[in-house]
């Protein structure tokens, strides 16, 4: 290869690099997307309060549904941003790019939800989550499971006897009046 060819090849490479400039994943851009999603959630709340003021029950339910979908998108976006930070710190460009793409996807979902377009699977997931945390009056392992005051924890008989004896000793140590009255009673 002569000098002219080398020069032309060098120029070609430089021009190609300038034309197709590749940037790493921009964390600032991702943080801006995160800010935009939060701004969308504020807009959803403004829409909800407007619906509440109108007194239209169906509109309130719809705006609540949209706000729930936006909350789900925010949660997903925050996870993506954390993944992006970790991948960038580890130098994993592919994983960082995937996380940035996921974040963009969440932003789009939030925007769609604000406009009333909620994917069915997301709506079902939100509904299932809400039902799972609904106060169903308790039951073993369920939310708001009330404590059983008659429950006797396993193998605690010795400890209970000890404390009862302590109380008995205290009671017995009190001064007694006349017919066996004490100044300190269990009541």
């Amino acid at each position, binding site marked *: 290869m002569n000098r002219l060819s080398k020069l032309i090849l060098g120029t070609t490479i430089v021009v190609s690099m*300038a034309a197709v400039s590749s940037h790493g994943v921009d964390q600032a851009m991702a943080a801006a997307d995160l800010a935009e999603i939060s*701004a969308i959630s504020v807009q959803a709340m403004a829409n909800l309060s407007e619906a509440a003021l109108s007194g239209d029950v169906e509109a309130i339910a719809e705006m609540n549904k949209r706000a729930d979908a936006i909350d789900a998108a925010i949660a997903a976006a925050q996870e993506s941003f954390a993944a992006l930070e970790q991948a960038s710190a580890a130098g994993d460009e592919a994983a960082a790019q995937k996380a940035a793409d996921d974040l963009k996807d969440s932003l789009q979902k939030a925007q769609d939800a604000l406009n009333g377009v909620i994917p069915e699977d997301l709506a079902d997931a939100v509904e299932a989550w809400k039902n799972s945390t609904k106060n169903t009056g308790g039951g073993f392992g369920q939310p708001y499971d009330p404590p059983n005051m008659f429950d006797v924890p396993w193998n605690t008989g010795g400890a209970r006897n000890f404390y009862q004896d302590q109380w008995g000793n205290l009671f017995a140590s009190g001064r007694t009046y006349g017919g066996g009255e004490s100044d300190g009673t269990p009541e």
Partner: protein
Amino acid sequence: MNRNSFLAALTVAVMGTGLMIDSARAQEPTLASVAQATIDAAELEVNNARAAIEKGKELIATIPEDSPLMPDVAQVVQAASENWKIAVDSLQGAIDSASKIDGASNDSIAADYALLSKVNAGVAVSGAKVVQIAIAYVEAIATEKTESLDVIRVAMQDALAGSSQVRFNYDRVKTLIAQKYSK
């Protein structure tokens, strides 16, 4: 075709592609025009909030001073006033950042100014929306729509949380951009 001719043809082809990309870019909206569109949207919301404040002043006058909801009114008015200031300052920040896009020394700096402008506009929009929600709350009290108070109260709390998230992320964007140039 010898090697030199082939390389020359390749150079011409690549440069031609570059020109095509440039002409395609020329048809795309520029950073400055996108920033201006975002600022326009934010300005609209800030103006809506301004109108809501005017309406709110009249509404507050109709609420009896001994109303049990007066402490609530005081609280939301305070939140509205703080967010109004944030909205106005951020809108100005967005305009300032956008004005520096065209004069930036390179594309990367221009893109960063555009990003700052966009996020600042987002802060302005969320602040303005919080003001609007606060005035909706006052309106519900003034017009005795007490059944909607619970919904608006929760919406206000969530909006305040969302608005602080927007500001937090704005600070994050600023820090990340500053880090880029301090290396």
